């Protein structure tokens, strides 16, 4: 049985710096959920310097690449164009420390994450289990996108495996 590292949001710089590829982590606290439709909108506002007006603090946070529907949550592929291209702005300008999804990401994304002391983690698509570990859910921006809006959820013991950290990838 693998050792599981406990993490609670917001993550400190030290907590992320201690992670290495292959670690299994248990994520607790508030995390954000968004995917193809909403992530480019967040990046646009971060780049334009207007994100702060929303009063949503992303620093030390997790962005989980999922829709939030009555069926629950589950990771979509993080290497989709709109999702992987959001990593840099979300980490550099927004302070996101963990991108949570599935699938292999590009070497340049792995490098960028290391430069910003951020990580990419893979979470199995275990919707029923995740639903039993989701304590709260709230739509916090762009409700017109429905299940693809930006959500903030409170989670307990979401297990994930570190797939990219410190310039290394689990897919090497």
């Amino acid at each position, binding site marked *: 049985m693998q050792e599981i590292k406990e993490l609670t949001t917001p993550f400190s710089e030290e907590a992320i710096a201690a992670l290495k590829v292959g670690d299994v982590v248990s994520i607790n606290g508030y995390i954000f959920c968004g995917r193809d439709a909403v992530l480019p909108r967040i990046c646009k506002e971060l780049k334009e310097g207007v994100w702060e007006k929303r009063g949503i603090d992303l620093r030390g946070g997790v962005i989980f690449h999922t*829709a939030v529907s*009555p*069926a629950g949550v589950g990771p979509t592929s993080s290497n989709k164009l709109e999702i992987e291209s959001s990593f840099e702005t979300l980490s550099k300008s927004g302070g996101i420390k963990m991108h949570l999804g599935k699938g292999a990401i590009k070497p340049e994304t792995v490098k960028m994450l290391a430069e910003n002391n951020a990580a990419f983690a893979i979470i*199995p*698509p*275990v919707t029923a289990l995740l639903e039993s570990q989701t304590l709260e859910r709230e739509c916090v921006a762009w409700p017109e996108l*429905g299940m693809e809006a930006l959500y903030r959820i409170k989670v307990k013991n979401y297990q994930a495996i570190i797939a990219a950290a410190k310039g290394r990838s689990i897919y090497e």
Partner: protein
Amino acid sequence: MPLLKGEAYMSDIINKVADCLVRAGSTFREDQKAAYRKAIAEEANGSACWVMRQVLDNAIVAENNRSPLCDDTGIPHLFLEIGKNRTITGELLEEIKEGVRMGLRKLPGRPMAIKGDDYARIDQSGGLIEDSGALDASPILIKSVDEDVLRLTILMLGGGPAIRGITQRVFHKHSVDVVIDEIVNRAIPAVSQLGCSPCTLAIGIGRSQFEATSLMMEAMVKGDFGVQNDFEKRITDKVNEANIGPLGLGGKHSVLATFAKVGPQRASGVRIVALRPCCCFEPRRASVDI
């Protein structure tokens, strides 16, 4: 089966179909659980074991709560088997459709029906319908069987495997080995790109795209993780040699099983092969006698 259909009988069919859909979307069959337990016991890669334990734990929670195994709850695909003394009426088909609608609301299915005309449905510009029950099932596949049954099987087919599925010809060169090698060559990148593995490979081999896909559907309806013929086992073993592993994290269990159905073949040098890399929850299926 009663000749006259009263209200109670009709509602009984709707309820049975709805319950069948919920089971399909929320329940691992025993052979599926056993396949996972066996793979976990035999897998040396720790990350691969962790993924497969998570998938199995998820199945237990989903079954207990009758809740979706995956947030992509899938598109209902219907397979109806009918014995020679049974009848299918337009009324029965309407009841099945109503049962599907009710089941999607109960599961609940992810609201995935697209609004609008042909163009709006293609580019998704008209938005989504919020009602889970608005999702149309695929056309029903009907097969006559040598049993006294009218049996409906519901498959819930997710989007990831649909993206990576391939239906294409193989020039067989009068060799089964050539066909197997081509299937393996197509399956390895498909399994690798799918992400949500370990997979089950569903395969149909026929004379046209329609027939091959129909046979692949039947393979998903009838496949058993505990019963693998030589053809299926050879494909599974060869794909597993690629060491892709669950979620692509490495390990020898990229594929848990292969469900293949070989139909009648054309007198020619070509075979049409339909291949679907079913995700770690698929085939999500349940059957009911109606």
